[in-house]
């Protein structure tokens, strides 16, 4: 393969990885603290993307300008979901895992119905930053680059938040040892609400950026959930660096697999890698191994 082509495919793959990472980060935040896989995650991304498209077309506000509002709205939605729905899980842990999946399934169903009622089945998208920069022989799509940078920034911000703030310490404590954290006076319920708010806020921000790359309709959510989950599972649940690395690996694999193999192979790579990795290394590439 020509080195220029290999470089271009790598860049494409990394940028695609940025999109994957955006979709996955929020899911990982929620899982890290609550051990809940929010199946409605993709639906929240889509809902935010649809909002971004409508706002752009009506008022000319770009998804980037809208980002703070999207984050706040997503965070509110997440907090409400946690308080109203996910707080009511049964106490026994085996039952809680199943019930949380079922609840999330119901929430996803609800959001799809809501989005259909509000936005119809039309595909929407934002025509903003669609050009590319030419760096020598390599072209870099602007919106993808923005998404890539945003993914890095969000992952960085999450890392700083978790490492260096009191809230972050609380969240980490809640994610590692519920009983211990409770004994230290940490309000576990509040930490769970905050993690849902944070995760859903990130999902909504991701939705705004995704609207510049793809056209989505209310039914596009489950696909995104699956993709996001593949990234998280690959990178390791609870690890943000793992999410970035997992997303980059998947992005590059999809890029090369789609080019050297077929479009079908490109589409299937995320699932195949995700299942293969889990079978051989259940904790993901950077996850803490289970004891």
């Amino acid at each position: 393969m020509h080195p220029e082509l290999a470089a271009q495919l790598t860049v494409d793959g990394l940028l695609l990885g940025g999109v994957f990472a955006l979709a996955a980060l929020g899911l990982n935040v929620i899982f890290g603290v609550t051990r809940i896989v929010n199946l409605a995650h993709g639906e929240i991304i889509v809902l935010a993307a649809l909002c971004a498209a409508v706002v752009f077309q009506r008022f000319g506000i770009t998804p980037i300008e809208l980002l703070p509002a999207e984050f706040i709205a997503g965070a509110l939605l997440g907090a409400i979901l946690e308080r109203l729905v996910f707080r009511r899980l049964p106490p026994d842990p085996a039952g809680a895992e199943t019930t949380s999946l079922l609840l999330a399934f119901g929430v996803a169903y609800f959001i799809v119905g809501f989005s259909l009622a509000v936005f119809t089945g039309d595909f929407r998208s934002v025509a903003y930053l669609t050009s590319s920069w030419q760096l020598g022989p390599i072209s870099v799509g602007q919106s993808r680059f923005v998404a890539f940078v945003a993914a890095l920034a969000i992952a960085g911000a999450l890392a700083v938040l978790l490492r260096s703030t009191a809230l972050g310490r609380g969240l980490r404590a809640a994610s590692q040892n519920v009983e211990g954290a409770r004994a230290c006076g940490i309000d576990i319920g509040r930490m769970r609400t905050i993690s849902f708010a944070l995760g859903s806020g990130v999902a909504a921000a991701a939705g705004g950026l995704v609207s510049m790359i793809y056209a989505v309709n209310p039914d596009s959510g489950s696909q995104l959930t699956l993709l996001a989950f593949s990234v998280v599972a690959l990178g390791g649940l609870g690890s943000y660096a793992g999410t970035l690395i997992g997303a980059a690996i998947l992005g590059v694999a999809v890029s090369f697999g789609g080019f050297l193999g077929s479009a079908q192979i490109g589409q299937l790579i995320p699932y195949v890698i995700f299942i293969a990795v889990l079978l051989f290394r259940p904790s993901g590439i950077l996850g803490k191994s289970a004891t």
Partner: protein
Amino acid sequence: MTDRRIAASVAILALCAILPPLGSGYVQSVFYIAVLYIALAYGWNVIAGYGGYLSFGQVTFFGIGAYAVALGVTQLHLPWLLCAFAGGAIAAVLAVPLGYLMLRLRGPFFALGMLGLAQTTRIAAEAAPFTGGSAGIYLPPGSNTLPAYYWTLAVLALAMGMTLWVDRSTFGLRLRALRADERAAGTLGVDVTRFKVMAFVISAIVPGLLGGGYAWYLTYVDPASVFSTHIELQTVAMVILGGVGTYWGPFVGGALMSQVSQSLGARFPQGHLMIFGGLIVALLIALPRGIVPALTAALARRSARA
């Protein structure tokens, strides 16, 4: 109690066998869809309800069954019923290695891994040289509703029978134990992998058999319609509504939802999904184990007071 269940089940199945031919084509197709989904729900309930492994990919086996009939009838010129049987057999055979592989994943990993598997099979069916690809396969046109219906009803009877067996057998006891705590079940001598795979195979045979009837009913098969996420999600929602891991849950949830979604969905296409989603969430919160266990418990309380 088991005898009463058998009596009630037989009565319901007999009713389902007698009524449709008396009604119009519409009545027949309503029965077909209701019975199809109830049977799918029973199939799903074994691995998900009794085994505790939520799957979003059992539709894989449904699609395989549908293709068994489509290909068997058009390419090999075999009778469709034979192909429909073969569909169930193929599903069972494939489920063994797939079960060994996929059941090493747990909880959300298994659930979403199965969703990925269904997508993988769909794309494979679109690309494979022998499936007719995405253009699909046309079966000979004909009045197939009643034959497809009776086949589906027979599969429902089988699925209910197997559920009853699971419910009252040592196999079911082991399955419920491993659902609660796999590790403890293992150290108590339960061959966890073997029984999980067995449950998975049962949950594959049922959709595998049903798929063939579906192909015959529609007279057309394409990857998007038989490996459809829509069918999978609808089935899952039904069992959740009725009660996961209970004998009557799939029946009540399936009957309720296929009826309501047909009357409600056809009139309020956008709104009804929202109502369903809300209903699922509300039910899970208010009655965490579904309608049937809640009703049973309420009835038990009443008779205890009386």
